[in-house]
């Protein structure tokens, strides 16, 4: 594992008893206590994740906006400074290079946050497709990113920053100090809980981490690993690149129509998506639940009777709901809510049905 990268918080994870695994070229904590315990802690109190393995690319200059507009499917021109947007970056065929967050730091400065496993591929794609007066820089190693997620996250961070956190609405951010360190304080996350993602100079990794850990102690906060990050995002119905979205599927097939703005000027992949809409979609990403106890996993086949209709892309025994849930692609015609399906688990079919995403939503009162 010598070639794997370490985040600025590697030693902090060892101090907290983190179990370290290889993930997307990094040595990351998969869990500290247990996935179930950390999952429940995020749902009921708060958890803190090191997500510094995520890639960050900084765009700046007069032509930054026009280039990002060409690279991504959502409309960045309407994005005001101090706001962020979720979007896709697509190949000419309309399938995903990656999914990402675009932060507008100022009129002509943008921070693009991308998946760890895709960082080099994305950066190369960006470099190959930009032109004009701008700088595009891979700043991944300069940033530490920490996600503080859960119902108690505001109360905890309140004690560490002068910003009025309650006034930061979803997908907006402020730039101010956290534990004395200049940070981007972003009201975003990947858990389905209220929370913040903090971006700051990697030199101060321990300072912020330790301060949140200490302050959070009184509010039930625990460090949380990548294991529960996956179970939390799945319950929240959020797609994971490499599972639910990839270079074989388009955002329309993934049900992410809202990140595709066909009304804006050209972007890479647009004509393919227009054509796909005209021809009609042949497959759809669905959410499903099983009525018997079995765990659907990536790659398992989906059936309607004896007919194979698709494949599972993510699945788990939902820790919050206590039942098996998953996502997967099915052929057109089988995507309606309530459709009966079966999942082949080790040679045996288990019945289930198509259900609405997300499986879990705090505002819905689960």
């Amino acid at each position: 594992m010598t070639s794997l990268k370490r985040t600025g918080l590697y030693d902090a994870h060892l101090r907290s008893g983190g179990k370290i695994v290889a993930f997307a070229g990094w040595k990351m904590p998969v869990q500290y206590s247990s996935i179930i315990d950390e999952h429940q802690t995020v749902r009921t109190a708060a958890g803190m994740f090191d997500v510094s393995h995520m890639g960050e690319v900084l765009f700046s200059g007069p032509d930054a906006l026009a280039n990002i507009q060409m690279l991504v499917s959502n409309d960045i021109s309407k994005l005001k400074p101090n706001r962020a947007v979720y979007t896709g970056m697509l190949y000419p065929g309309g399938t995903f290079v990656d999914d990402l967050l675009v932060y507008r730091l100022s009129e002509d400065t943008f921070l693009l946050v991308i998946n760890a496993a895709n960082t080099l591929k994305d950066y190369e794609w960006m470099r190959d497709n930009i032109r004009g007066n701008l700088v595009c820089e891979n700043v991944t190693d300069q940033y530490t990113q920490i996600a503080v997620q859960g119902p108690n996250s505001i109360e905890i961070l309140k004690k560490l920053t002068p910003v009025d956190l309650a006034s930061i609405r979803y997908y907006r951010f402020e730039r101010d100090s956290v534990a004395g360190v200049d940070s981007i304080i972003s009201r975003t996350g990947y858990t389905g809980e209220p929370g913040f993602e903090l971006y700051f100079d990697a030199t101060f990794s321990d300072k912020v981490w330790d301060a949140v850990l200490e302050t959070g102690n009184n509010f039930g906060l625990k460090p949380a690993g990548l294991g529960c990050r996956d179970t939390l995002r799945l319950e929240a119905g959020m797609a994971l690149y490499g599972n639910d979205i990839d270079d074989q599927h388009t955002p329309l097939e993934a049900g992410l129509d809202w990140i595709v703005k066909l009304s804006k000027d050209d972007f890479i992949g647009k004509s393919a998506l227009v054509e796909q809409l005209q021809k009609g979609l042949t497959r759809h990403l669905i959410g499903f639940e099983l009525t018997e106890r079995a765990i659907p996993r990536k790659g398992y086949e989906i059936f309607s009777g004896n007919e194979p209709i698709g494949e599972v892309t993510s699945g788990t025994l939902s820790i919050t709901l206590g039942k098996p849930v998953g996502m997967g692609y099915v052929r057109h015609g089988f995507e309606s809510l309530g459709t009966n399906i079966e999942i082949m688990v080790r040679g045996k079919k288990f019945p289930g049905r198509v259900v609405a995403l997300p499986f879990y939503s705090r505002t819905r009162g689960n």
Partner: protein
Amino acid sequence: MNYPADFRYSKDHEWFKMIDDSTGAIGITHYAQDQLGDVVFVELPEIGKKLEKNDVFGVVESVKAAVDCYMPLSGEIIAINELIEKQADILNSDPHGEGWMIKVRIDNPDEGSDLMDKAAYLAFLEELE
């Protein structure tokens, strides 16, 4: 963690314990459950089923992964642990005791000669680290 001295251990991290001359109990080791993390589901064979050495006798699923469990010796299933079907996390809390998985009537005890004793298994785990 205490690895009992009267158990024998496989490279797939199953343990085997002789109960009497012709029967034994089988489970997964502490190391196996620690690698898996939270166990949420266990699939066990039917009583009466005859399985060969290295056949899959069951599946243990954690939040992270599903792994097959292999017979350390050939034999017939004479009992399964119904408790762990209801409370799979016992495999995490007591893998060498309450978390036993199956009991078997073994065909030939000599088949277990390639299994490791405690010292050999601990040395094997050391190598894996």
